Structures are given as C-alpha cells and as structure tokens.
C-alpha cells in the first residue's frame, strides 16, 4: 500500500543572530495508513520542527523549508497557503502537547470543535454540526457530551482536555494524525488511557499516526516503527521492537541505558550520555553525535570529518547513520553489557 505520508529530504532552518539554525537536516520517512511512527528525540532534535512542517505551519517569513512532504499524493512544500489550508484539519490534523494552552480559553469547547468541522464542510447546518461534534466527543470518551459541549476548557481536567483536542483533530476523519508529545503534560494513569484511545481510534479509522515524544517507553507501547532524531537528523530508524531491543546507534543505546526504569538494578548508577545536546547554530563537524560518542576515536578521524549516511543495516528496514561497522558495533555492545554486569 502506498504510504499516505511521504517525507523526502526535509530541511528546516531559521536565520538567527548567532548564525543559521538548522533545525531539520535532511529527514526522510514514510508512514502508511493504520500504522504509527514514533519520532523520538530530546529538545533540539528537530522533532517538533518536523511536525510543524508536516502541516505547513512554519512561518515562511522566518523559516526556510525545503524538500518534499507529500500527503495523500498532494505536495505541501512550496505550495501557496490557500492550498495547504485545505489539507490542514482535513487530510492531516495535529494534537499538541499542552491542551490547556492549545485550546482557546474564551471559547466554548463544543464551538471550537465545531469550527474545525465547519471550515471543511461549508454547507453544514448548525444542527448537523452539533450532532457530529457530540458524536465525536462521545467517541473519544467524554462523558455527557451534550452538557460538556457548552463548557470552557478550564472546566475540564487535563486528560479530558486532551480528549477534546483529539476529537477536534479527528472530527473530519483525517487520514494522517500528528501527535506532538500528546501525553507529556498528563499524569501517568491518564497517559495510559490516552494512548489506548489513540490506538483504538487508529484501528477504527485506519489513520496513519506520527507520534512525537521523548519517552522511549511511550514509543514502545504505542508505535509500530520508530525514528530516532538527534540534532535535526535521523540517526536510527526501523521497527520499534528491533530498534528498542537491539539498538544499533550509540545515541539510541546510550539513551536506553540512561533512562531509569522499573526494571534493572536500582542500586547501580545510571549511565548517562556524557555532555549535552549541541547548539543548533554551531553543529559539530562530521557526525553530529561524535563529541558525545564513546566510540568516536575508534575510526581515527572519520567520525569527526565525515557525516555518516543513513544506510540499511540487517534486515527489515532497519536504518542507521553510523560509521562503525556492524561487527565492531556488536562486539562493543557485548563488551558494554559484561562491563555493566561486573560493575556492581
């Protein structure tokens, strides 16, 4: 099946006082209907900039966006605003991280959802719109939707507000949903509910979902494929089990090793990645990760001078941007594991 979303060599940059800020540097991926792609990265990884590019939401007076973003066969980059606007909210919709600030505080919730419906269904009457909105609110699990239709966002709890956002995004049955950190601001028990809701809705509507998060656990639970981003680039991509169980890139494995979890030895020190994410105006030469990578010296100067290409490794669409040959990587990983086992 032809992927509904196809991104090719996307680049987003902003001119700043300190030089050009390259937020996204040559990102390519595709998502098919009914599948969830998790995009994992920390702040500065470019994941949010990528998400905004998928809806053409960058202010082009300030940002430069190049490459191709094709949604349902229609190209987004370089097209006039009026054309993109027809796709926004209809073919592709977005839910944001903080539902309290993402909803207009002065307008009633029902009206905000109805607005999303009416802008793409111009002929719809009042009654029809209201019915559709209430149906959607019910579908996302908001109790007493006809009463809550007339309430304001601040009268809802965090999880309910996020459900409102989801209802608003899905009211036009978009084939693609972008979820930017949808559960980060929520309690963990509510997070579980929302993730389950998204999975149910995806199954029902065959939506393609791009789920952006910094939480590897969330990706493991909710995504089919994963993209690991660092400093605007993809460093690793593949099926979620493959990438999380056998991470190939030192950043991915570093991240997995540094995250505290409910399993593992609580007495052992965590193994953080040394250093901190680079400034996007002064990126390191060669491989962007090399200043923090333990293996950077192994290949002489190569990691410092030559940026690695994203290449297929192994089977099943697992891609990696790293100079270390596979065998060497495997050997080092085995070494790490034994060392960690001996440590305490």
């Amino acid at each position, binding site marked *: 099946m032809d992927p509904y979303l196809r991104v090719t060599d996307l680049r987003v940059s902003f001119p700043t006082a300190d030089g050009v800020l390259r937020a996204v540097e040559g990102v390519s991926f595709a998502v098919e209907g009914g599948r969830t792609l998790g995009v994992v990265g920390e702040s500065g990884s470019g994941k949010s900039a990528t998400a905004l590019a998928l809806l053409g*939401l960058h202010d082009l007076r300030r940002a430069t966006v190049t490459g191709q973003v094709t949604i349902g066969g229609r190209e987004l980059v370089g097209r006039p605003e009026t054309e993109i606007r027809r796709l926004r909210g209809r073919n592709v919709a977005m839910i944001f991280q903080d539902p309290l600030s*993402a909803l*207009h505080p002065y307008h009633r919730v029902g009206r905000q959802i109805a607005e*999303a419906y009416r*802008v793409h269904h111009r002929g719809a009457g009042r009654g029809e719109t209201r019915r559709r909105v209430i149906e959607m609110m019910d579908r996302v699990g908001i109790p007493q939707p006809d009463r809550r239709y007339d309430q304001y966002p601040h009268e809802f709890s965090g999880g309910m507000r996020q459900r409102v956002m989801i209802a*608003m995004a899905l009211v036009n049955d978009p084939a693609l949903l972008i979820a930017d950190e949808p559960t980060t601001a929520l309690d963990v028990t509510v997070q579980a509910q929302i993730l389950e809701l998204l999975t149910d809705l995806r199954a029902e509507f065959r939506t393609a979902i791009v789920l952006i998060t910094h939480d590897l656990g969330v990706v493991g639970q909710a995504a089919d494929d994963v993209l690991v981003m660092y400093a605007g680039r993809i460093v690793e991509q593949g099926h979620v089990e493959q990438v999380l169980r056998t991470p190939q890139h030192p950043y991915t494995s570093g991240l997995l090793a540094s995250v505290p979890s409910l399993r593992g030895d609580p007495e052992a020190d965590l193994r953080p990645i040394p250093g901190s994410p680079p400034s996007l105006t002064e990126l390191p030469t060669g491989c962007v990760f090399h200043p923090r990578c333990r293996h950077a010296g192994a290949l002489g100067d190569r990691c410092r001078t030559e940026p690695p290409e994203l290449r297929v490794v192994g089977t099943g669409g697992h891609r990696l941007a790293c100079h270390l040959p596979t065998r060497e990587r495997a050997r080092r990983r085995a070494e790490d594991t034994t060392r960690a086992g001996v440590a305490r």
Partner: protein
Amino acid sequence: MLRFLVKRTLSAVLTLFAVSVLTFLMFFALPRDPVSGMCPRNCNPERLERVRQELGLSDPLVVQYGGYMRGVVAGRELGAAQGGHCDAPCLGWSYVNNEAVTDTLVRVLPVTLSIVVPAAVLWLLLGMGLGLVSALRRGTWVDRVAIGFSLTGASLQLYFVGAVLLLIFVYTLGWLPVPGYTSLLDDPVRWAGGLVLAWLSLALLCSANYARLFRAQLLETLGEDFVRTARAKGLPRSAVYGRHALRAAISPVITVAGLDVGAALGGTVITETTFGIHGLGRTAVDAVRAGDLPTIMATVLAAAVFVVLANMLVDLLYAAVDPRVRLG
C-alpha cells in the same frame, strides 16, 4: 454577580467619602479667606460677614462637613437669595457663579461627555487600528511608520496640536466653525462641527499608547498555542486573527481604556481651555482659582464617581470577555 455589585458599591461609597473628606480638608488647609475671594473688589464687609454666616464658615470643620454631606444626602436649607430649599442631592450654592452647584454640573457635564466619549471612540479605533496593522505587518515599513506616527502624536502637546488645527481649519481654511458646545439634541451637525477638532487632537495624542499596547499584545497572542491550533485546523487567516487572536489580546486594552476614559471624564482641562469650551475641567479650575468650595467639591466628587464607575465597568467587561474570571 450580585455579590460583586454589592461589594463594589459599598467600596465605592467609602471611596467617595474619603475623597470628600480629603477635599474638604485640603480646601481649608489653604491659607486664605475663602469668602473674600468670591467677592469683587469693592466688596462690602457686612455683605462678606453675612455670606460667611450663611456658609457657616465660623463653625468647626466637622460641622461644616456634616452639613454639606447632609445636604448631599437629604437636601438642606439655603438662604432666600439662593432659592430657599435645596433638594437632595444638594451640592450647595456657588457665590462665584451665582447659581446652585447642581445646576452648574448639569450644565457642564454634557459638555465634557461630548468631548470625551467620541474622542475616546476615535482614539481607541485609531490606536487599535494602528496596532493591528503594525502587528500584522511586523518589521515592515508599515509597522515602522505606524508606530512612528503614533509616537509623534504622543510626544506633541495638546495645546500645540489644538492651536495648529485651529489655525488651519478654522482661521485659514474656514472649513470649521469656531469651536464651542452646542447640545447634541439641538443640532447634531453643529455639535459635531464645534467639537471635532477637540476629538481629533485628543485622538492623535492618546492613540499612541493603545497602538503600542495592542501591537505588543497581538504579537504575544499570535505566538500562543491556541492560535497555532486554529491554524492547524485549517482556518483562514481572517478567522485566526479575528476570532482567536483579537479577542484574547484585548483584555489589557480594556483595562487601560477604562481607566483612561474614567480619568478623562473627570475633566479634560487643557482641551477645554485650548478650544474655549466650558466643560467640567474648566469649571473645576475656575472654581479652585476663585476659592469656590461647593463647586470644587462637586467637581472633585463627580470625577471620583467617574473613576469608580469606570473601574467597576472594566471588571465587568473583563468577566464578560474571559470566562475564567469570576467576579466577587
């Protein structure tokens, strides 16, 4: 809501009470004889003494104040020459103007209202318009010109602007009549014609603040998440700005506008003097010069009432615009 109104009315009464006491005290702190100022040069000392008696100026301050306030609340007796019984609210008799102060107020209030209200509408529209345009065209020459224009307006002085406008439109081109007040009810065209220069001058000067404020608020609002959501829904730009951004950006403008208008209603002295119109402000200044206590009290209290009402209105508007605000 009811609770809010009750609480605010009570606090308003207290404020007005405090204002009246302070004014009273300040007046009597002046080292001068209030009566002799009221009288033309060749004043008869017996007449002076009689007036002094009638005004009760030999009584202790507290008694005088009490008498005055009683008059405001329940009416009191004045001398025969002053019309005998003065109904509540009795604001006393002005020997300077030779009329009941209440009549003075009734005469000058509509004048000030006619100056301030249309000017306020103008300066709000102009200020917000300039602010909107500069926010939308941020960084371009339009932005710079608009802000520059409003800053220039704010830096000028009203007596200068007023005088220049008079010179151009009244004395040179003759397009407008000499400014003066005609009741709106009598002749709307003359009403407008006599006041339009005052409106324009005030608008020019006051709009700058609003232009800057609104521009800043709009820019901040446009960066808010819910505006991004609106765009993500596919809304056209007009809806994004109109329905989403504007309404959210307007709150501080309401506050400032409310307080400004409240203060202005207390008397736009310079405007009135420049254009030779006798409104509340002019009357107040004249009363102070002449030492006309009843008129002073009345004008000060009137101004205080406007400010208090304006504050209450601002709070009500806030609650009307922002559903998160709860009064009380």
